[in-house]
């Protein structure tokens, strides 16, 4: 039953992403709320459903986005794997872990999006992508990283109360 929380949270995250966050752009870059929430959720020690969240985020993204579906799905799974790995390594510094996963996660997602669009025939250049999308997007993601982590920390405490009491 705890896994069901992924549906409303990720659906809401994508709605907010499409209606608000994507309109607040820096050059052509925008923050990625689903990525941040997914990374923050995967960094919570007691959470066991992060892989399910990655799959669900990938499916929702495939449904609403024009990107080739495999790109966000693969990127989200890799980001969760990375987050779980980093969480085990630097569990005493969760904020540092969040910023690290935000940095690497943004790069992974953008790399996969870039490659997928290149393969599908969209003529986009790596230089333009870095200058107009990735670097501004990274900056905006860093701004939202800590609030996203705090929100997911509270959610994890609410969803897994017994583990926190032990």
């Amino acid at each position: 039953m705890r896994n069901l929380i992924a549906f409303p949270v990720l659906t809401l995250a994508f709605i907010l992403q499409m209606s608000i966050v994507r309109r607040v752009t820096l050059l052509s870059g925008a923050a990625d709320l689903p990525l941040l929430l997914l990374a923050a959720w995967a960094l919570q020690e007691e959470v066991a459903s992060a892989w399910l969240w990655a799959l669900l985020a990938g499916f929702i993204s495939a449904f609403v986005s024009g990107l080739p579906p495999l790109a966000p799905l693969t990127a989200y799974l890799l980001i969760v794997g990375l987050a779980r790995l980093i969480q085990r390594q630097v569990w005493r510094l969760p904020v540092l872990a969040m910023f690290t996963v935000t940095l690497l996660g943004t790069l992974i997602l953008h790399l996969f999006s870039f490659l997928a669009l290149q393969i599908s025939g969209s003529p986009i250049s790596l230089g333009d992508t870095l200058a107009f999308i990735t670097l501004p997007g990274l900056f905006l993601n860093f701004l939202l990283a800590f609030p996203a982590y705090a929100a997911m920390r509270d959610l994890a405490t609410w969803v897994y109360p017994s583990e926190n009491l032990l």
Partner: protein
Amino acid sequence: MKDSARIAILFLIVAGILALALGGYFGFISQRFNVSLVAVQAWVSTRFVAIQEFITLPRESASLIRRNAELEAEVSRLQAQVVQYKQQVSQTEALAALVNFSRSNPESSYTAASVIGRDPSPFLHYIIIDRGSADGLRRGMPVVTEKGLVGRIDAVIANAARIQLITDPGSSVNVRLEKAGREAALAGSVSGDLSLELLAQDVPVETGDILLTSGLGGGYPPDLIVGQVLNIRKRDSDLFQQVTIQPVVDFSALKIVLIITDFRPVDITPLLQIP
């Protein structure tokens, strides 16, 4: 006699005093008297008001605080109403402009739709609208505003559709320079800038030239306004000119769009020879 004499003396004294007063001889004394009287009156009045305020102030203060809260709530409500009215006015203006456009272009039939979102990925310039296949929308239908071309429908579900804007890096629109009468391909980019491709060096282009859809390829109907030439760069070493285009539509402020529902796009992909 004694009483009569006393009365007469008293009368004379009073009459004399009155005569002196009327003659202005007591002015100084009466002025001093008046000043003292006013001072006493003011002192009493001030103390009375102070005591009255001291007694009634807590009740008045609570009343004022309550009244202030009521007024603040009223101001907030009115401000929200003003914002709502402004939005309605803005929407009405946009709709009126679209109605004018559809009336001035009666050869096509249109369906209006509101923009409800954008693609979650910043790599793509797509918007989401609140009309879908249940409203007769199909993939490939062109989308316009009263100003000009917006893009075309990329995907449809029952009650929503995704539109690929002409600024998307994967978009390519066959256009015609109105003045020169020559065709070219309009391409989008990651940054949202538009540029002309395949425009030969000998084609005369000037800043401000209008671009219309050519209708070639069957993707868009002809003669829809797309934009105007913003910047031209010619280099002898290049095969084609580099021309930057200013779109007529402000894609960051899109709220309502029109879908041309009676246009059936032609997919010529099977006819293209792939080497």
